């Protein structure tokens, strides 16, 4: 797992590189996630990553995603497993057509300790058992 700030996005964004697996651990992908405390779910990923991991084969019923402006849209939802510093964290993975940025949400963040000091470029995430 690698945590860093991306300067491509303004203001700079906290990014975590982690490995995402399907529930059987038979497929995996290395994904750059933007840490997003506004996202209540586990991870939001692009459809490419979702299908690459075969998550469409482990789905539950669709959920409704709601952004702060109140707009809603359908989200596909599946169980997945995120690997963080060697620790595997089960979480829900969501996708929708056109999602282009991968997000790491509060369902995962509540299991971690995070130090966030952007002025000093400090972003540390550790598993909090």
């Amino acid at each position, binding site marked *: 797992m690698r945590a860093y700030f991306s300067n491509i996005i303004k203001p700079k964004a906290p990014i975590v590189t982690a490995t995402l697996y399907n529930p059987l651990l038979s497929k995996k992908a290395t994904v750059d996630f933007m840490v*997003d405390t506004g996202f*209540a779910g586990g991870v939001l990923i692009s459809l490419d990553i979702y299908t690459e991991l075969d998550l469409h*084969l*482990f789905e539950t*019923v669709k959920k*409704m995603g709601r952004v702060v402006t109140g707009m809603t849209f359908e989200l596909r939802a599946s169980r997945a497993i995120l690997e963080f510093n060697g620790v595997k964290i089960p979480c829900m993975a*969501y996708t929708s*057509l056109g999602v282009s940025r991968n997000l790491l949400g509060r369902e995962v963040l509540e299991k971690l300790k995070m130090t966030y000091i952007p002025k000093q470029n400090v972003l540390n995430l550790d598993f909090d058992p």
Partner: protein
Amino acid sequence: MGRLVAIKGIDRDLYKKIKAIASLEERTIGSIVNEALRLWLLLRSDRKYSRWLKIEEAYRENYRLLVKKYSELCERYKGKYLAICNAKFLGVFDSFEEAASSVHRNCSSHAFIIKIGEDIREREEIELGFPVEFI
């Protein structure tokens, strides 16, 4: 005969032109709209869209079956895991992992693994915050 669909926000001038062309070619406006929609889909038919549509179609078939039989299943198998694919029940399993293994061996287009008893209405909201970026 297709079903009746009302669409808001159609450009009136564009509609008049289409109506004139339809009349000249002795076609219905519906057939022209269908042709236009097919063309639009073709223009956007990269692999991602067609993959999405394929999964979506299979999802709908599986969901219809799930809704139809769910209350019956809840009475008999509450707490177990139900797997559905190809619009058929694959089985009821004691654990998610067993259900997932079976799905992995037997399914390709789309599959559900549902813990029997959980809410299956497509209404649970997930707060997405801001921003969410789309292509």
